[in-house]
C-alpha cells in the first residue's frame, strides 16, 4: 500500500499513457476487450487519485517523486540542486487530480454507450486516455519544462478530439482553430520558460521560485505565462476557440476539455502564487486576474444568452464559469500581501468552484449530448417537448443548469456564495457583476430548458427516449456529486478545499522547502 502511494503521482500519468497506446492494439480483439481495458484504466486512475489525495491531505506536506530516482533524498541538503525531473504533489495538485479523475471516469463510461454505433472509436479512446494522462501530468509535475510537455500532449490530444468527427465541416474547423490557439499558447509558455531558464539555469519550479529576482525579464516571462495559460483556459479576450471546441467536440470530450482548461488554470495559479509569489507585486497581478475574470464572466454569460444551439449555449456557460474561478483566486492573490481573513474565503470559493463547475458542466454536456443524439438536432428552435420522452435526462439537465447558475441547495451556490462574499469585501462592484451574471445565466438556462424540454410533444420529436443506462449512470453519478456537495458544503470545504486553498495561498515556502530544504 505504501509503495502504491509513493508511486501514485507517476502512475497517474503512466497508466493512462499505457492504456492510450494499448487501446488500438487491444481494440483489434473487439469492442468488449477495449471497453474493459479503458474502464479498468480509468477505475485504477480514479483509485490512485483518491489514494494520493488522502495521503497528501493527511500528511499536510507536498510529496516529491523523483523520476529515475535513487540518487537524492528529499528535501535536499548542503547546496544540492534538483537535476532530475521531479513530480511535486501538494494539496492543490491532489485536489485537481480528484477533479480530473471524476471527469475521466464519468466521461469514459459515458463514451462507451455514446460511441457504440460508430467506427473508429478505438482511436477516440486512445486520444481520450492521452488527454487524461496529459492533464494529470500538468497537475502533478514540479518542473516547468515538464509542464510544457504535458501542456503540448493535452493540446495535440484535445485538438484531435475536437476535430474527431471529420465528416462534419464545423468539427474540422473547430479542430483547426483549437490546434492553432493551443499551439500559440504553448509557444508563449515555452518562450517564458526559456527566459527563466536562460537567467537562472533551472527548470524545477521550487528551485526557480527560490531564485527569481523580479527583474524585467522575469516580468516579461510572467506576462507570457499569464497570457499563454489564460488563453488555454479560455479566458476572455482569448476565448474564441473555447465555444467552438466545447460545442463541436463529442459530448463526453467537452467535459474533459473543461477539465483541461482547469488544468491550465491550475498552472496559472501555480505560476502566480508559487513561482512569482514573492518576486512581483501580487496586488497588481491579482487585479489583472480580476479584470480578466470579470470580462470572462460577463462576456461568457451574455454570449450564452443569444445562442440557439444547445451545445454552444452550454459551451458559453462553461466559459463564464472559468471567470468565477479566476475571480475567487484573483481576489485572494490581490490581497495575498496582507492576508486578511476574506482572502482565504475567496481562495476557497474559487477553488471549490473548480470541482463544482467540473461536475455541473460535465453533467450539462452529457445531458445535451444525450438530447442531441436522441433528437438529431442541436437547434433549440427545432426541439420542444422533449421532457415527455426524456424524463430523466430533463431532470439531470435541470439540476445541472440550476446548480451552474448558483441556485441553492446545489453545489454551485456553495462555491459562488464564498466568491460573492469575499469579492464584496474587496469591492462591492465585483460582487455585483458576479451576482448579476449568475442571474443572467439562470435566465439562459430557463430559456434553454423551456425551449428544449417543455411544451407539448411535437410530431418531429415524438420518437425521442431517454438514453441507455450506460449513458444515464454517469449522469446520475454527477447529479449525486452536485447534490451531495450542495447539501454538505461545509464538510467538503473543510476537508478538501481548505487544504488546497491554503497550499496555494500560504504554502509557497512549504512547496520550496520540500525540494530544497529549509
Amino acid at each position, binding site marked *: 500500500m505504501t509503495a502504491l502511494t509513493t*508511486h501514485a503521482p*507517476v*502512475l497517474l500519468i*503512466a497508466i493512462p*499513457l*499505457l492504456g492510450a*497506446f*494499448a487501446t*488500438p*492494439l487491444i481494440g*483489434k480483439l473487439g469492442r468488449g476487450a477495449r471497453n474493459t481495458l479503458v474502464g479498468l484504466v480509468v477505475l485504477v486512475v480514479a483509485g490512485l487519485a483518491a489514494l494520493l489525495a488522502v495521503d497528501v491531505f493527511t500528511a499536510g506536506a507536498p510529496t516529491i*517523486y*523523483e*523520476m*529515475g*530516482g*535513487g540518487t537524492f533524498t528529499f528535501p535536499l541538503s548542503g547546496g544540492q540542486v534538483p537535476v532530475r525531473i521531479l513530480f511535486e504533489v501538494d494539496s492543490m495538485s491532489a485536489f485537481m487530480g480528484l477533479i480530473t479523475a471524476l471527469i475521466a471516469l464519468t466521461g469514459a463510461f459515458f463514451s462507451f454507450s455514446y460511441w457504440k454505433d460508430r467506427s473508429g472509436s478505438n482511436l477516440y479512446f486512445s486520444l481520450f486516455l492521452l488527454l487524461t494522462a496529459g492533464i494529470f501530468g500538468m497537475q502533478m509535475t514540479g518542473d516547468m519544462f515538464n509542464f510544457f510537455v504535458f501542456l503540448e500532449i493535452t493540446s495535440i490530444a484535445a485538438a484531435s478530439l475536437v476535430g474527431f468527427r471529420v465528416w462534419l465541416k464545423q468539427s474540422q474547423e473547430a479542430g483547426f482553430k483549437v490546434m492553432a490557439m493551443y499551439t500559440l499558447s504553448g509557444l508563449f509558455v515555452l518562450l517564458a520558460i526559456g527566459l527563466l531558464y536562460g537567467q537562472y539555469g533551472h527548470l524545477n519550479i521550487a528551485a526557480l521560485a527560490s531564485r527569481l529576482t523580479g527583474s524585467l525579464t522575469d516580468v516579461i516571462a510572467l506576462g507570457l505565462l499569464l497570457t499563454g495559460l489564460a488563453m488555454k483556459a479560455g479566458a476572455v479576450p482569448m476565448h474564441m476557440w473555447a465555444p467552438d471546441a466545447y460545442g463541436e467536440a463529442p459530448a463526453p470530450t467537452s467535459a474533459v476539455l473543461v477539465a483541461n482548461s482547469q488544468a491550465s488554470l491550475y498552472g496559472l495559479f501555480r505560476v502566480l502564487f508559487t513561482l512569482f509569489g514573492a518576486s512581483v507585486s501580487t496586488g497588481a497581478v491579482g487585479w489583472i486576474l480580476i479584470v480578466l475574470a470579470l470580462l470572462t464572466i460577463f462576456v461568457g454569460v451574455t454570449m450564452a444568452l443569444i445562442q440557439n444551439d444547445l451545445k454552444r449555449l452550454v459551451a458559453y456557460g462553461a466559459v463564464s464559469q472559468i471567470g468565477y474561478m479566476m475571480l475567487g483566486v484573483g481576489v485572494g492573490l490581490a490581497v495575498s500581501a496582507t492576508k486578511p481573513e476574506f482572502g482565504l474565503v475567496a481562495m476557497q470559493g474559487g477553488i471549490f468552484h473548480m470541482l463544482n463547475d467540473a461536475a455541473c458542466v460535465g453533467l450539462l454536456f452529457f445531458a445535451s449530448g444525450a438530447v442531441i443524439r436522441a433528437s438529431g438536432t442541436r437547434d433549440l428552435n427545432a426541439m420542444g417537448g422533449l421532457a415527455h420522452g426524456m424524463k430523466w435526462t430533463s431532470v439531470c439537465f435541470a439540476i445541472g443548469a440550476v446548480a451552474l447558475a448558483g441556485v441553492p441547495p446545489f453545489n454551485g451556490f456553495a462555491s459562488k456564495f464564498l466568491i460573492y462574499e469575499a469579492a464584496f469585501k474587496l469591492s462591492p462592484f465585483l460582487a455585483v457583476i458576479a451576482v448579476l451574471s449568475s442571474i443572467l445565466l439562470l435566465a439562459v438556462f430557463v430559456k434553454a430548458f423551456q425551449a428544449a424540454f417543455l411544451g407539448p410533444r411535437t410530431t418531429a420529436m415524438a420518437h425521442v427516449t431517454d438514453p441507455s443506462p450506460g449513458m444515464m449512470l454517469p449522469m446520475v453519478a454527477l447529479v449525486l456529486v452536485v447534490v451531495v456537495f450542495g447539501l454538505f458544503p461545509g464538510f467538503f470545504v473543510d476537508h478538501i478545499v481548505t487544504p488546497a486553498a491554503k497550499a496555494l495561498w500560504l504554502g509557497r515556502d512549504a512547496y520550496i522547502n520540500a525540494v530544497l530544504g529549509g
Partner: protein
Amino acid sequence: MSNHGMSVIVRTVTRFVYGLIILFGFYVIMHGHLTPGGGFQGGAVVASAFALLLVAFGSAGLKGRLNLHWLQSIEEVGALAFLALAFLGIGTAFFYNLLANSGGFLFGASVPAGANAGVLNAGGTVPLMNWAVGLKVMTGIAAVAITMLIGSKKEETE
C-alpha cells in the same frame, strides 16, 4: 503525385540509396547514447527513406509492401515498449535505469572515466528506449506519409 511514381532516373537512384538511408537511420538510433541523434532523429531518417520510396514509385509501386495497419500496430508496440522499459525500474522509481552498469550483455558495461572512444555496450535502458522511440517514429511518420498520399490521391480523382 501520380500513382505511377516519377521518372526512371529518380526510381533508379532511389533503388540505389534507400537501403543506405535506412542503414544510416539505424546507425543514428544505435549510437543515440554516444553521438548526437537518437531514437527520434534516426526514426525520422528511416521514415524519410519510406517517403522517398512513396514519392519515387507512387502508391501503386508500394502496394502490399507497406501496410497501414501493420505500421500503426508496430507504432503502438514501440510506445508500449518504451513505457515497459520505464516500468522496469519501478522497484526504485519510474524510469530508474536498472540495466546500466549491471555488467550484463544488454548495454550493461561500465564506462571508464576520462576521454574515451565511447562504449557502445553501455547506457542500460537508454539505448533500448532509443530503439523503442525509433520504431515508433519510423512507423508513425511512414503512416502519416501514406495517409497523406491516400488523401491527395482521393482529391485528384474527384
